[in-house]
């Protein structure tokens, strides 16, 4: 967390930045459409949502846990929002708060169950994933909310900076900024990290680890709801299938971004900047693979390979940095 600037060159983030730049250079030279205004705008919007999803997972990985219910929370929040706006006629702004509240609440439920049972959040969120999603489909009868206020949906197709960039990206970057501030410059953020790194030591040092873990799950739910709002504005409707069956389609970007970004799976170490770059890298590569025609069906395969390479590289890097520190 507190690396000095010259050390930045040796960090994961720097490596990622280099990769991002390299891929941008490659794709913009080899493919036609990559730098087109349409493509860049489209990319900025996808990146925005993937960053948000990645951050939502990152804050739970911080605790050494996982949140498989991420997508389910997102969809539930979006559908709840659709209900608020379409059925109840609640104005946009209060609705957004309600959506975020819903996401946070579902995250809180995950957190409470995890903390109270002491069971690993993997199994808890595996269960709540199917409960949330099932409840949502039951209550909505899988009917989408398609008549959302235009003020809400327009946000998703707004174009800024000579029509190159979606405002959604700015929202995501702002969220990154806020999380960076939280983890670097506030006592709560530091406590969250400490609790994740070594719950026993943190507890004995006067930190309520359970509360911190619940905060992480709430934050995760909140960020998932943010992602859901962004996705809803993008597609202009709240649709039960927006994150795939059980919301599981969000899981790949959710894991890719933080893991590539250098967040430690055992908890206690995260990188907001890295997660952001991880999401950027993944979106870039996906887009590039589409453009150079590897075949739509092979994209998953390549993403899997990239995830594998990323974790293996991270392991080797860890090995070398650890060595160098001990020697110096």
């Amino acid at each position, binding site marked *: 967390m507190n690396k000095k600037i010259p050390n930045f060159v040796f960090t994961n983030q720097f490596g990622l930045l280099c990769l991002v730049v390299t891929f941008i250079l*490659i794709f913009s*030279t*080899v*493919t*036609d*459409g*990559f730098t*087109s205004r*349409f*493509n860049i705008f*489209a990319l900025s919007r*996808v990146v925005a*949502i993937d960053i948000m999803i990645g951050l939502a997972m990152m804050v739970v990985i911080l605790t050494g846990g996982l949140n498989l219910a991420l997508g389910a929370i997102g969809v539930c929040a979006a559908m709840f929002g659709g209900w608020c706006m379409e059925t109840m006629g609640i104005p946009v702004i209060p609705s957004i708060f309600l959506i975020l509240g819903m996401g946070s609440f579902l995250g809180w439920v995950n957190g409470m169950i995890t903390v109270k049972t002491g069971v690993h959040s993997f199994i808890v969120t595996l269960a709540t994933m199917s409960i949330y999603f099932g409840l949502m*489909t039951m209550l909505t*009868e*899988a*009917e*989408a909310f*398609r*008549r959302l206020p235009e003020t809400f*949906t327009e946000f*998703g*197709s707004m174009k800024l900076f000579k029509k190159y960039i979606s405002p959604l990206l700015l929202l995501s970057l702002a969220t990154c900024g806020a999380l960076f501030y939280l983890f670097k410059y506030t006592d709560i953020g530091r406590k969250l990290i400490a609790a994740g790194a070594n719950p026993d030591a943190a507890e004995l040092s006067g930190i309520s680890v359970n509360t911190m873990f619940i905060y992480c799950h709430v934050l995760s739910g909140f960020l998932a709801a943010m992602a859901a709002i962004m*996705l809803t504005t*993008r*597609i*202009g*409707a709240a*649709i*039960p*299938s*927006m*994150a*795939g069956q059980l919301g599981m*389609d969000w899981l790949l970007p959710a894991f890719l971004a933080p893991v590539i970004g250098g967040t430690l799976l055992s908890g206690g170490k995260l990188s907001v900047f890295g997660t952001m770059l991880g999401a950027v890298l993944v979106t870039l590569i*996906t*887009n590039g693979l*589409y*453009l*150079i*025609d*590897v075949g*739509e*069906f092979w*994209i*998953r395969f390549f993403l899997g390979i990239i995830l594998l390479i990323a974790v293996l590289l991270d392991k080797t890097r860890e090995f070398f940095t650890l060595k160098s520190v001990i020697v110096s």
Partner: protein
Amino acid sequence: MKFLFSMITSSAILMASGAFAGGHSPTKVALVPGGPHPYFAAWEKAGKDAVKDFGLGKADYKVPAEWDLSQQNELIESLVGKGYNAVLVFPGDAVGTNKILGELDDAGIPTAALAGCVEQPTKAKMCFGTDTGHSAYLGTKQLIKAMGGKGKIAHFTGFLVDPNTTLRIDAVEKAVAEAGGGVEIIQVIADIDAYEPADEKINAFMAAQGGEVDGIVTTAWVPAVVASQALTNMGDKRIKMVGIDHDEVVLKAIKEGFVHGTMLQNPYGQGYIGSYVMDKIRGGCSFKASAPWKTTAQTNQFIDSGTVFVDISDVDTYVDAMRGISLEILETFDGTYLDC
């Protein structure tokens, strides 16, 4: 290494194709289904034939790896980035897909909804597909006829998120209502457009209520296949069933007498004619104000791609029947719909 190679070759191709630009540039159509599904497979050949027959630049079938609106959007966006300038899409969502169609329209790219419609208001030039509601209605009528005008019906259908599913459920209800009091729907099982859950649910249904039910209408591909199979396996010819589409399992079951018949759709014609229309529109044509649009629950810019009921008597010649319909539509299309 191979990866690098494919990057270089594909970029070379792209450069080369870019050279055509200028004037009415060659039309490059992308045919994008909602996700992988056997129904759409005919689009691939339809696109290729359209390139050959109408001199298009390209007409490629591009499938999102999963049934997911976001993935479909991402794929379409990247296809446009890659230079496709016309998009035929099976809407991932009746409203959700409108958003991207509007954006494509802003970028000067004509689009049309194929096989399923988007709701209005929309920037899609047309919706060209099976009148699914009508097809389901006709199919149910056929079933009721086969059942002798009375009995209990079960309805198996596909993804609830598919815009067509609701139409189908309503249409089946309508046909049943028209039959008077003799016919009753005892269960609708939806959201079973994948084989494993479909197998599980349909068989559980058969086990529990197979004795009570007299007729089955299926209005989606997978349930039709699984239900045909279930009836074949049970050796049951008492229960009448009307399926949908042309999966070989269904066709075989018709020949063997386990399934009464099936409602065929015309995916090949959709892709073939759809590609043709896109090229026309890029060439400066537009739809006549007086075009004889059909109106459905979703849109009033609908063109029927045709549907045919097939039973044991004509199951062997269905391909010709469909081709006939396609050619018929194509022949009259310019005159009926377009203003060039």
